[in-house]
């Protein structure tokens, strides 16, 4: 697959980290993102996800390593012209209207989409009727939708979204998932950093888990989640066999019947991304606790 982002051995040690007894924020992370691919970036708090995203955005300078965005070094003008970014802690001028903010970002990005692009983006994020609403009058959820719209100004090949649904209600989250899928269909790539594992599992083509500044595992969500075994509904009750895989089931049913068991049903169990995440993080010395779901709501 053609890669829009290629990061190799990215390292970051913040100034004063050694004095404070901290190690590298990033300890050599290599990750690539294909064109039109949605990659979920997961990890405990302080794992290095934001540092990675900020290096790609040119907001943080790597101590070592390199990253190319569409062939241009990250932080360069050419690379900046090819990305959109929604920060976790986003904030926009309270006096700006939704349309005015997008107009400003069109000018900053050198995008020539004009009013039609602004209208399309606001429609896309569900703010079609809020073009003249000021940021100060918007709920946190509306502001987050607006932030998503500004990240999409100029149709950048790579969109970095840091917790883009943290302030949204379930309907809003579902809407954002649809937006992300639409971006994929358009050929835009997304790096999605989130603590909401079920969200990532539903939308990401690939997941990368970072712990203590290192990429500890990556793969498709279904591969990482793996199998969770099988559950047999027998006359004697429900029996769970976590070691079995899908291909083992016919033989196991035959064995049970041959042994005189009455089998009323068989259910293949799937593992979850959350289980895979907890396992991976614990194995690599992380705190292993799933982060609490963020509060907040969409108006």
């Amino acid at each position: 697959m053609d890669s829009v982002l290629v990061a190799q051995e990215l390292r970051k040690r913040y100034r004063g980290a050694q004095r404070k007894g901290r190690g590298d924020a990033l300890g050599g992370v290599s990750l690539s993102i294909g064109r039109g691919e949605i990659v979920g970036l997961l990890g405990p708090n302080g794992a290095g996800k934001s540092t990675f995203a900020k290096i790609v955005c040119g907001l943080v300078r790597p101590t070592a390593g390199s990253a190319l965005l569409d062939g241009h070094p990250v932080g360069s003008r050419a690379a900046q012209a090819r990305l959109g970014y929604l920060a976790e802690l986003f904030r926009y001028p309270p006096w700006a209207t939704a349309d005015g903010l997008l107009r400003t970002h069109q000018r900053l990005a050198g995008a020539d989409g004009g009013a039609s692009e602004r209208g399309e983006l606001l429609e896309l994020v569900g703010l079609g009727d809020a073009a003249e609403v000021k940021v100060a009058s918007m709920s946190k959820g509306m502001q987050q939708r607006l932030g998503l719209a500004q990240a999409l100004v100029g149709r950048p090949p790579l969109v970095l979204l840091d917790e883009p649904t943290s302030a949204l209600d379930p309907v809003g989250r579902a809407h954002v998932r649809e937006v992300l899928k639409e971006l994929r269909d358009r050929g835009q790539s997304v790096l999605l950093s989130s603590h909401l594992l079920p969200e990532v599992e539903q939308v990401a083509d690939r997941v990368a888990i970072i712990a203590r500044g290192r990429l500890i595992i990556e793969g498709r969500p279904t591969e990482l989640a793996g199998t969770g075994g099988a559950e047999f509904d027998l006359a004697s009750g429900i029996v769970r066999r976590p070691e079995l895989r899908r291909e083992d089931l016919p033989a196991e049913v035959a064995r049970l019947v041959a042994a005189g068991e009455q089998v009323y049903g068989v259910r293949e169990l799937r593992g979850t991304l959350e289980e895979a995440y907890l396992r991976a993080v614990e194995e690599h010395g992380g705190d292993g606790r799933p982060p609490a779901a963020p509060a907040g709501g969409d108006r």
Partner: protein
Amino acid sequence: MTVAALKTWPRDVVLVASMALAELRHRRSLLVVSVLTVGFLVLYGWGVFEILPSVTDRVGANIREEDTKRGVGFILLGIAVFATFSLASVLAVFTTMSTVKGEAELGLLQSMLVRPIARSAVVTGRVVAATFAGFVYCAVVISGASLLTSAAGGTPPGNLPAVILALTAALAVVAGFGVLLSTVFGTAATGMATTMLISIGFFSSLVRQIGESTDSPTVAARADLVSHVLGFNVLYEGALGSLTAGVAGLAGLVIQLGPFGTQREFGSDLVLLTVAELVLLVSAATWRLRRLDL
């Protein structure tokens, strides 16, 4: 910087400056300064109409009435220049004090810097915004004070455009310091530090005056050095000098003895100093901004 970046740099500077001016308007800093300014001009008008018509009655008969009125008029205009610079400095400080660390702490700066825009344009744009606001402000207030003084019987400034330009240049340098300090400190600390620098500037003028009047060349030279390093202060003195440009005799002398700092000629040397200081301050701020992890 690439050729493409150089081509878009002026556009980026104007864009950043327009955003900063919009912020100034919406944050109501402009409203606060406007209210204070109207208050100042009302008091100033009341003062000049009270003082100037009664000047001849209070001064001994051995000084010509015309010279006395001119001298007192220039002292009053000196007060106007001082007040204008002080109030316009508030604008310059408010426009620049949150440029880097303050806006980064709020998360506002990052959304701008991820765009293809040069960091030097971000820094320069803020200075340009503060300078533009300062120019408009100085033009309005100094012209207003000048009109009031003339209407009350005083003499208008010797070189009004030079007074306005010198003050604008001084404000540009104040803005340069504000932007540079904002790469080191948060918003409040930058505001305080810049205001303190302005105070140090005024103090250095007074010290120079004291040094000269007490025949202490070392004190005067060192105070003069501080004024030059701060830049805005010699420009403020240049604005005072332009008040009495071409005015000889008592009126020209009186303003030099006033309590608002010494004056000096506003010429090409001060223009060069302004350009050099601005280049230095903006370059240092850009260098700092490039090194910051946001």
